[in-house]
């Protein structure tokens, strides 16, 4: 099993190095075959691990120590790969989606010039993500955390000729840095309290003795709450939760397969993973958990509303991702850690499916992403429509589809937790569910139903994707269909069942009643209604239906404008100030520029005074001797 674990983690790295180093020697096809081969092996190994884990009921654990990273006094950080139920689930999900994206990209990205760069980034991302989820040590986790951040930056900016792609990449990176800062502070606090960065050891230390409270601004705050908040903000950055979510929609500038892999199925779930991994810590907090609940509920609601008015097909799905991540945080907050991870798992399949399906549409529409110019696509793209429908139904929570099981688990837990948090979060999540149904129906309707709004030339080119794109779609559709059905018993098993002591897994309340049935029924109705209504798209229809809210939503709750005014502008002014008055007119003018000008001026003067005449030379000789003698006679001693 150790070998499988190593293969699973290092396969993508080999693929990355291969694509990065040998792209000159190999043809494009050969290169992609090699990358696909390594990824395939890694995926097989990961799947084997997953099967073994499921079969053994979570009883099996492997740790492969690689080497010691840092050793200073008592402190040591090690590189190690560890497989426990949580990490194996993540490894499986990451590898399967990554492998399918590798395959899908072969057709989707054909004709790209430097495809090797793309594949190298993909491999590196997958490796970093696997390092993150297989870490036992917060430092190694942080390595993976930053690694996926960098790869996300690189992949969003893959088309670096596009100004918007560069800006989006920069934005994603900077917003993530805000979260990262808090993660580092959280790690520092963790180390301060436990003298270790090893997750298991530290958590058990924290549980065995309640640490002294921190004093924040003169008031004592329970130490665990402080840690919880710090880690929460860290997770919010990576998982695009309300406040730090603004980068995710912009990240859609990257290639669509990248969006499916990074900005839907894997990287953005790292925050959820982090909190689930630290669940024993959150279990003992009240304030931090409450924050997690409300962050999740508000994100689910806000992102759902914004998704309603988006016209870019990828942005709809991006906001949907945001909203679904909110659900997961809600689940984490109310203590249904297993439910949240389960939703992460099923969401990985159906959201990747939706993204790749949208990619198929975009690909066949010659890179058109605006839904207002689509419509009627179900006729020429029946397969794609079927896949998208499966994904949508899973997203909406249609019974027996995967999303149904995981979402129900979270909703039920939220309802059950009303004693602690009130009914607010639950109500918000129900509204979000309806919103989800609405925007998903709208998206499907606008894209596939009704009459085509594309022009003639474009319409003639619309085609079903080829095998290399259909195969991943089909596999993901399968996952979206059955992963809930097959998984819910294992994943939602309470106590120490499947999850062992790695994450806290309460028993999910499960009783079919009006509370659970009604939202589902309403959701389905809204979905169908939206599908029908938005079959025909007209400008202003939406505005009429939601009135004054429309501007507010179209401007995405004014988050970007607010940040622009609050942070970006002041920092920009400050930078301008230092640049113009500090650097340009101050240091540069006096220092480098001034001195160079003086030197060049002096040099030119010297050149102009140069006569090339012998008498001048001799005069200079004589003057020189006289000066020298004067200096020797009267100078004496030393100068300076």
């Amino acid at each position, binding site marked *: 099993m150790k070998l499988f674990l190593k293969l699973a983690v290092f396969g993508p790295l080999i693929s990355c190095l291969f694509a990065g180093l040998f792209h000159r020697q190999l043809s494009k096809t050969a290169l992609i075959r090699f990358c696909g081969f390594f990824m395939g092996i890694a995926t097989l190994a990961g799947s084997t691990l997953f099967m073994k884990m499921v079969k053994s009921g979570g009883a099996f654990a492997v740790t492969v120590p690689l080497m010691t990273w840092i050793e200073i006094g008592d402190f040591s950080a090690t590189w190690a790969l560890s497989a426990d139920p949580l990490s194996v689930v993540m490894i499986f999900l990451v590898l399967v989606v990554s492998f399918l994206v590798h395959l899908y990209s072969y057709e989707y990205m054909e004709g790209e010039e430097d495809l090797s760069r793309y594949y190298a980034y993909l491999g590196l991302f997958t490796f970093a993500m696997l390092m993150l989820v297989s870490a036992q040590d917060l430092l190694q986790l942080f390595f993976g955390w930053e690694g996926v951040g960098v790869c996300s930056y690189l992949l969003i900016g893959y088309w670096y000729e596009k100004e918007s792609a560069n800006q989006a990449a920069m934005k994603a990176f900077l917003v993530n840095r805000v979260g990262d800062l808090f993660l580092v502070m959280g790690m520092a606090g963790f180390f301060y309290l436990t003298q270790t960065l090893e997750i298991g050891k530290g958590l058990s230390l924290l549980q065995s003795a309640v640490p002294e409270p921190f004093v924040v601004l003169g008031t004592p705050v329970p130490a665990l709450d402080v840690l919880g908040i710090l880690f929460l903000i860290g997770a919010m950055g990576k998982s695009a939760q309300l406040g730090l979510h603004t980068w995710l929609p912009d990240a859609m500038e990257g290639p669509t397969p990248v969006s499916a892999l990074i900005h839907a199925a894997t990287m953005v779930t790292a925050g959820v993973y982090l909190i689930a991994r630290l669940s024993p810590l959150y279990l003992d907090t009240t304030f931090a958990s409450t924050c997690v609940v409300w962050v999740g509920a508000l994100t689910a609601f806000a992102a759902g509303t914004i998704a309603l008015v988006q016209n870019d097909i990828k942005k709809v799905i991006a906001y949907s991702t945001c909203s679904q991540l909110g659900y997961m945080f809600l689940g984490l907050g109310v203590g249904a850690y297993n439910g949240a991870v389960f939703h992460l798992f099923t969401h990985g399949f159906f959201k990747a499916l939706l993204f790749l399906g949208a990619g198929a549409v975009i690909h066949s529409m010659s890179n058109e992403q605006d839904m207002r110019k689509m419509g009627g696509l179900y006729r020429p793209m029946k397969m794609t429509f079927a896949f998208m429908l499966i994904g949508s139904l899973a997203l909406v929570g249609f019974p027996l589809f995967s999303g149904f099981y995981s979402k129900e688990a979270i909703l039920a837990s939220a309802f059950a937790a009303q004693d602690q948090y009130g009914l607010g979060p639950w109500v918000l999540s129900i509204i979000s569910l309806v919103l989800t149904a609405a925007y998903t129906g709208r998206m499907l309707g606008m894209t596939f139903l009704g009459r085509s709004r594309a022009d003639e030339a474009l319409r003639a080119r619309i085609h079903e994707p080829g095998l290399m794109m259909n195969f991943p779609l089909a596999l993901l559709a399968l996952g979206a269909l059955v992963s809930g059905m097959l998984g819910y018993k294992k994943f939602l098993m309470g106590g120490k069942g499947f999850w062992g002591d790695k994450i806290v897994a309460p028993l999910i309340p499960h009783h079919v009643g009006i509370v659970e049935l009604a939202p589902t029924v309403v959701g389905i109705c809204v979905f169908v209604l939206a599908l029908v209504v938005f079959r025909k798209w007209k400008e202003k229809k939406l505005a009429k239906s939601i009135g004054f809210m429309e501007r507010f939503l179209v401007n995405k709750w004014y988050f970007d404008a607010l940040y622009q005014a609050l942070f970006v502008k002041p920092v920009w002014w400050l930078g301008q100030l230092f640049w113009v008055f500090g650097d340009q007119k101050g240091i540069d003018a006096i220092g480098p520029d001034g001195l*160079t000008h003086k*030197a*060049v001026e*002096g*040099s*030119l003067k*010297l*050149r102009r005074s140069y006569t*090339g005449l*012998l008498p*001048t*030379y*001799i005069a*200079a*000789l004589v*003057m*020189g*001797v006289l*000066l*020298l*003698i004067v*200096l*020797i*006679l009267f*100078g*004496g*001693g*030393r*100068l*300076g």
Partner: protein
Amino acid sequence: MLDNFLMDLKLVQSELVLLGGGLILLLMTLFPKRSKEFFPLFSVGIILMAFAVLFIPSGSWNSVDGMQGFFASLEASPLSQSFRGYFLALAAFVLLVGGSITIEKEKTAPEGYSLILFSITGGALLLSANDFFVAFVALEMMSLSLYAYVAFWSDGANAKEAAMKYFITGAVSSSFFLMGVAFIYGLTGACQFDEIANLMKLESETFLSSPLWYLGIGFLLAGLGFKMALAPFHLWVPDVYQGASTQSLLLIGVLPKLATLGFSILLLKGPFSLVYEELGVAITFLAVLSMGWGALGALTQRNFRRLMGYSAVANMGFVAIGLLPGDEISLASMNYLLIYSIGFVAVIGLVAYLQNQGLSLETVDDFVYVRQVPEAYRLLLALLMFSLAGVPPLAGFFGKFVVFKHALQHGYTFAVFAGIFVSVVSAAYYLRIIKALYFDALPEGTEGLVAETPLRQSFLVYRLSNLASVGLAAITILFAFVLSFL
């Protein structure tokens, strides 16, 4: 008597070998049927032989301390012997590189090489002089042969102008030197270094209060400063560097400087040791002026040869910093000069070699064409430029480092600050060449312009020279480390 004479001869064995070689070459003018590559190879052989016999007087350099001869007009000390060693080794390299690279483009005649050998004889003799008259004769022997050599190979107006200017200013500077000797003789009544040193110890009060003494030293320094191309005695440098043939340039650029510097060190440590301390300001003045003038002159210079000329002046300024008086014998200046000279020979040799390949490398901008020949040359040139600019870990850096360390240890903060400042300015013109080498675009329509008729590669000497310049470059780059801690 005869025994004594034979003993004395041991002091001048190297010079005898060189002189003999020169005379043989002169005789060879009677038999003009020699192949071209014979003369440089022969000369290099002679110099190497001279280098070898340097060890003979008593088997090693270290046990010849204070050995005198010819009525104490010559003296061999470990220091002077090692200087002579450096001088002869460098001379051999210069001839190997220059003689062979220029073999096609420039006239090869045995007379030329005999002049070179005479000049080297003068330099070697200068380093073992213990008497002002011998020193003067040696200095003139070195210089006159070089004047003649520059003139000997002067085709075209530039070259004639160079020869003329070199000769006339050189003559004036010699008169300064002689003037200095006269003043000192007038004061002390002695010409031998030992004698002067002894008198100094006995009657230092009288001497040090007499202006004649300082006048003498001033004139002497001016004369030597001219040979070392220190400002303000350097005005001939750019003209001569531009006009002289490659072979002459290599010789002028390296040999007189090394010999004169060695002689100056011996002089300052020997007869002038008591007054050495007093010369701080004067040497600082020479150093700072040379560095500043050289760097500013080179900064906007487009012609490569002239640029190297100004760069030489600036570099001699650094050498002068190393010459600042200190407590014990410091070889910082000699160390710097050696590193600089090796770099200089390698650069000029490489450039001349590339010119032979058909590249026109007249101006700094012309260096864009270097990318038309194999990549290794470009890399080598760039590394050499970095070394000249003093970028660690290359040799040039260690040279500067040792010089600055010496000056700082003895409190010459001003000179060091000036040196660092000039280093920055001088980096600009070396980097400009690197910019042309690597970053500037080739002008339109000059792709594949390299030499329709590259020169014959078959000469043994040719290969040797290639090897030698590459080897020199490698030495500069790699082994400078060792040199810098001599």
